[in-house]
Each structure stands twice: as C-alpha cells, then as structure tokens.
C-alpha cells in the first residue's frame, strides 16, 4: 500500500482499484464495499506517532509497495489437499475441521461431514459472498470496517484469502477447527479475513494459526489480517490465534469478538514469529452476563518487535472480563503491551481484571506495559497489574541446590512462567507450541 494518498496515474485511475476490479470476480455489493474501503484508505493519513496505539511502532513499517499486492485470481475450491502438517492433524477424533488459506488466493477446507449436515458452514469467504450474500453482507465489516483505521481500510479493500465459519444455533463443535494461513513460499504481501458467526447456544473451538515459523521457507513480507467474530446468546467460543510467521514478516492483526447475553469467549493467543507484529485483539461484551477470558503469550528474540493491544469493552451490565498477558524476551527484542478496559456508564456490576507480566532474559530486551482503564460506572470491580522483571539469581541458585544447571534452571523458570498460559491452548497444538516457545528461547 502506498504511503501517500492516491498515486499519480493517467486519468486519475487508482491502479490498486483496477487490480481489485479486474481480478477478484466478486459480486457487485462486495466490490462496491471494497471501493469504499479503498477510498477511505486513500483519504486517511498515516497514523501519527503520537496517536493512541502508534507510540510504540512506526506505521511506515506496514506500508508496502502496492504493485506487489498479491493477485487474487479466480476462486478455487480445491487446491490439491491440505498441507501435510494439517493433514496429519486432521484426525476426526482430534479436530473437527481444517482450512488452509494461501497467500493470494485459494482456500482449502475439510469439515467433518456430520457437522456439515448439521448446518455448519466453512467455506472460502469470497465464495460465501456469492452463495450466502445476506449472511455475509450483514456481518462482514460490521465489527472491523474501513473506518477502524488506515490499515484496516486497506485490508477491507484488498483482502484476497478469506474464510467464513458459521455455526448454527445450538450446534456444539467440541473438537477444534484448525486454520492455517500463509506459508506458501511467496514473499508477496497479502491481506486476509475471517468471519466467524456462532449463533445462540452454539459452541466453537477455533485454532487460527499464521505461518509455520520456518524462516528458511520464506514468507510474505507483509500480512494484514482481520478477524470478526459474532457470538450469540449463550454461545461459547474458544479462540486460539497463533502467530508464527517467519523471521522477515511484518504482520498487522486486528480481531474483535462481539458477545450477546451470557455468551463466553476464551482467547488464548501466542505471538512467536515475525519481524514486527502488531496485534489488536478485543472482546465487546454487548449483552448482560457476557464473559471474556483472554490469555496471551509473546515470545521473542533477536530484534523482534511486538506491539499488542487488548480491549475489553463492557457495554452491558453484569459482564466479566479477565486478562493475563505474558511476555518473555531475549536478545534485543522489544514488546509494548497496552490493555484497555472500558466500562460504559450504563453498564453496572461489571468485573474486569487485567495482568501483564514481562520476563526479560537478556540485558538488551525491553518491555513496556501500559494499562488503560476507562471506567464510566462506579458499581464495578476493576483491577490491573503489571510487572517487568528478570530471572532472579536467587531462583537460579535455588534450582542449582537441586542439581539443576543454570541453563536448565532458566528453561524451567520460563516454563513455569508460560505454563499457565499454555494450559489454555487445546491439546491439538499445546505441545507443539511449548516446543516452539522453548526453541525461541533456546539461546538464553
């Protein structure tokens, strides 16, 4: 995407729009939304470094040369099966479905036939825009649209790979659905989008994995992802985003979940890879009794840069949120965490808790923690806490008295630090993520 406004081209034609119009083959309603989004993107200045959420990461990092935007190409239903790592995981007894979103185009989907016959839909979002226009029109862009921010506007205009997951009322999917995005070997930047609709009393367990962490396989230079989730009354959603891009990738990730009365979401996010990773993850508690529990882990080394923002927006009374975000860094890695708790004036009897803990494993690592509380109602319970610390020599000595050498002692302390967060990752991914975490911290 261009840093400037509309690029100069003959007769005022926007080349990105030409590309989208020519190659995407979307229905008219979607094309006109894309055009609107592109206009917003062009009209919006780059965020200022002093504006909220841009103090810690330079927005110029997310700007790409638009000529390299991935070609969308025609939609295809079958791209020749799932990648082996997903195939292995696709055992009906351990996962309920899998999808593979490739850089640029092509979405592969496998879903337990029992679920399909129960009305569960999992399909290419662009295909869904044609087949289920009413459902997609109503929800797409309603939580994160072009006016959310400049890069969300870009993504809304230019997203290529997309996935719709729809779980009808009362259908409970206990095993996880596993989505893998991106590791296609092409370096082109791309934008993608998930739309997840979980109706009243339905249950969904979703692993949403980005990249495969293989630095030598290369990866996209830039990724812009948007995830919108709707949870109906009494719905229960478990959401497990795993960011494991290869070492050179710059990623921009925005997610919102909107919960109606008594709905619950548990989010367990892990950020491992990438050069720069900016994450904005939030839950809107829109109905009485809604509850969000968010657990996060960021593990970095070298010169990795993390910028995580979480939002718990209590719009209704008697809602509850809990957040535990942990960061462990080595090398010259840097993390900024900003956590917003917002309780509206018409939302009494809410409870909100937020904790951010940072473990620095080298003298060059840096972490910042900024809680943000906007409490407009007095009848609430709201607490927050933040710590930044190093592995204490006393702890290493203590473990030494048990025969544990210093390197193993640090590993054990880190495992103890991340363990309570890992515990919230489903079995299907937990051991693998634990190994990745230790691997990332292997040089401490």
């Amino acid at each position: 995407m261009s840093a400037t406004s509309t690029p100069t081209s003959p007769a005022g034609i926007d080349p990105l729009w030409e590309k989208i119009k020519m190659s995407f083959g979307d229905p008219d309603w979607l094309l006109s939304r894309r055009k609107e989004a592109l206009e917003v993107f062009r009209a919006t200045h780059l965020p200022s470094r002093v504006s909220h959420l841009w103090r810690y990461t330079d927005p110029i990092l997310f700007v790409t040369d638009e000529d390299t935007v991935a070609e969308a190409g025609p939609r295809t239903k079958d791209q020749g099966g799932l990648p082996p790592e997903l195939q292995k995981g696709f055992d009906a007894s351990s996962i309920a479905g899998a999808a593979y979103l490739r850089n640029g185009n092509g979405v592969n989907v496998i879903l337990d036939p029992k679920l399909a016959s129960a009305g569960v839909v999992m399909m290419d979002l662009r295909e869904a825009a044609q087949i289920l226009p009413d459902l997609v029109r109503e929800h797409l862009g309603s939580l994160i649209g072009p006016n959310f921010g400049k890069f969300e506007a870009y993504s809304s205009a230019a997203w290529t790979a997309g996935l719709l997951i729809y779980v009808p009322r009362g259908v409970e999917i206990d095993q996880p659905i596993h989505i893998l995005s991106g590791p296609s070997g092409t370096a082109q930047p791309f934008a993608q989008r998930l739309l997840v609709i979980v109706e009243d009393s339905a249950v969904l367990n979703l692993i949403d994995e980005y990249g495969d962490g293989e630095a030598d396989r290369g990866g996209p230079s830039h990724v812009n992802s948007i995830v919108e989730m709707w949870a109906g009354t009494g719905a229960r959603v478990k959401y497990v985003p795993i960011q494991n891009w290869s070492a050179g990738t710059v990623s921009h990730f925005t997610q919102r979940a909107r919960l109606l009365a008594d709905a619950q979401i548990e989010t367990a996010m892990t950020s491992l890879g990438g050069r720069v990773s900016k994450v904005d993850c939030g839950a809107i508690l829109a109905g009485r009794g809604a509850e969000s529990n968010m657990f996060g882990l960021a593990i970095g080394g070298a010169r990795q840069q993390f910028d995580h923002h979480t939002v718990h927006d209590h719009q209704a009374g008697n809602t509850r949120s809990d957040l535990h975000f942990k960061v462990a860094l080595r090398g010259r890695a840097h993390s900024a965490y900003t956590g917003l708790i917002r309780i509206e004036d018409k939302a009494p009897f809410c409870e909100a808790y937020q904790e951010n803990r940072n473990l620095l494993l080298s003298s060059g690592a840096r972490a910042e923690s900024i809680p943000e509380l906007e409490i407009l109602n007095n009848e609430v319970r709201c607490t927050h806490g933040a710590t930044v610390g190093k592995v204490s020599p006393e702890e290493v000595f203590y473990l030494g008295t048990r025969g544990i050498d210093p390197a193993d002692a640090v590993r054990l302390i880190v495992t103890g630090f991340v363990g309570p967060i890992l515990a919230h990752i489903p079995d299907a991914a937990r051991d693998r993520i634990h190994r990745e975490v230790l691997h990332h911290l292997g040089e401490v």
Partner: protein
Amino acid sequence: MTQDHAPFRCEDIRVAIESKEVVKGVSLSIKGGEIHALMGPNGSGKSTLVNALMGHPSYTLTSGRIFINGEDVTELPPHERSRRGMFLRAAVKARVKDDPEMKTFRKTLIAEFERLEIDPAFATRYVNDGFSGGEKKRLEILQMAMLKPSIALLDETDSGLDIDALQIVSKGINTVVNETVGVLLVTHYQRILNFVKPDFVHVFMGGRIVRSGGPELAAQLEKEGYERIEKEVSQVAEVA
C-alpha cells in the same frame, strides 16, 4: 570410616561480604547418620555460612575447603555440589522426553507424598506459582526425600511453621535421615529440637562456632538464652 569419607567436611571456612568478614573460620565434620544442630542468634552469620557452603554466588569464600564424601567441591558451582550429594543429591535434569523414567519418578513422588503426609495436589502446581512459606518448607523436605542427599543443610527450616507443619517437617527429616545421610540443621531457637533429636549441638556466634556439645547444650540454651554463653566467650577472649 575415616574422616576423609565423611559425607561432609569443611575446613576453616571464611566468608566476607563487602570486605567485612562474616564467617570467621568454621571447621566441621558430619558423619553419616549424624544430626548436627547449628544454633545461634539472629545476625550471627549462620545463613551466610550455609549459603556459602552451597556455593551461593553472592558469598565468596576468602579461605577454606569443602569436601563431600571426601571430594573437594570448593570450586564447583551449586548444581555440581548438589549432584555430588550436598543438600539434595543427584541430578534432577528435567526429563521431558523420557517417559518410563517419568512414570517411575511419579510413582516414587506419590509414595513420598504419602510417606511424608503432604498433599499430593502440590504436584500439579507450577514451579514458581505462589507457594506460602510453610508450603515451601514442606516441599523442600519432599525434595530432600526424593533426592536422597549425603549431606542436607537445612537452614531455618522451622521458622514460620505452625505446630502441625513443624511436625510434618520434623517427621520428614527423621524419615530421610539414615546411616548414610548427615544433617546440618540451622536454627535460632530450640523448638524443632523437640522433634528432631540432634547428636551434636554447635553454638554459632560472631561468625564462629564458640561451643560444641551434645543435646544437653540445646536444653541449656533454651533455659539461659545466648547471653550467658556470649558472656563466657567474651571473658575467655579477654583472658586470651
């Protein structure tokens, strides 16, 4: 058994903190099956001595040698001393992949939980997950039982324990001690000695062992406090 093969021996241990000598020449030999109590008032340097014996990085020896089962460990880091049997013997390298070993370990662990009457729920908690002071001390006894050391240095094991916890910890010590294990029990008051019977009592003041004797010395301390011994020691010093 020759002195060389005592589980634990140290000679003329001196420790300085910021150029101030805190431990001023301690020599001690502990044979298998012996419980030695090291008693002294607060600030006498007991903890400094014990931490230095274990190799704490903040305390450097200015002189002295430390032997475990006859081997000089003075230059070894804490985990190497541990693996040679100090405090807690044997390597407990995390064996993540070694399933059979892990199963045996769990079985032994659960058996020790029962033997020591400690709540097995401890085993499901994370390494650094908010244990209370009393819980930590009980866990240390459990770890000692698991690691089967040659020499256990138990520093202030009794402080902060209620009477039930004290009995559990004492029972643990008595259970673990056998003819091959030596114990150095460091305490500033006598209460735990009602449950763990020492063979030798050393009074530690001003960085030195000023008096050694049998269990009767502990009883005398309980009755008269440290003051009287302190007076006697200073008189001796004046005469000298």
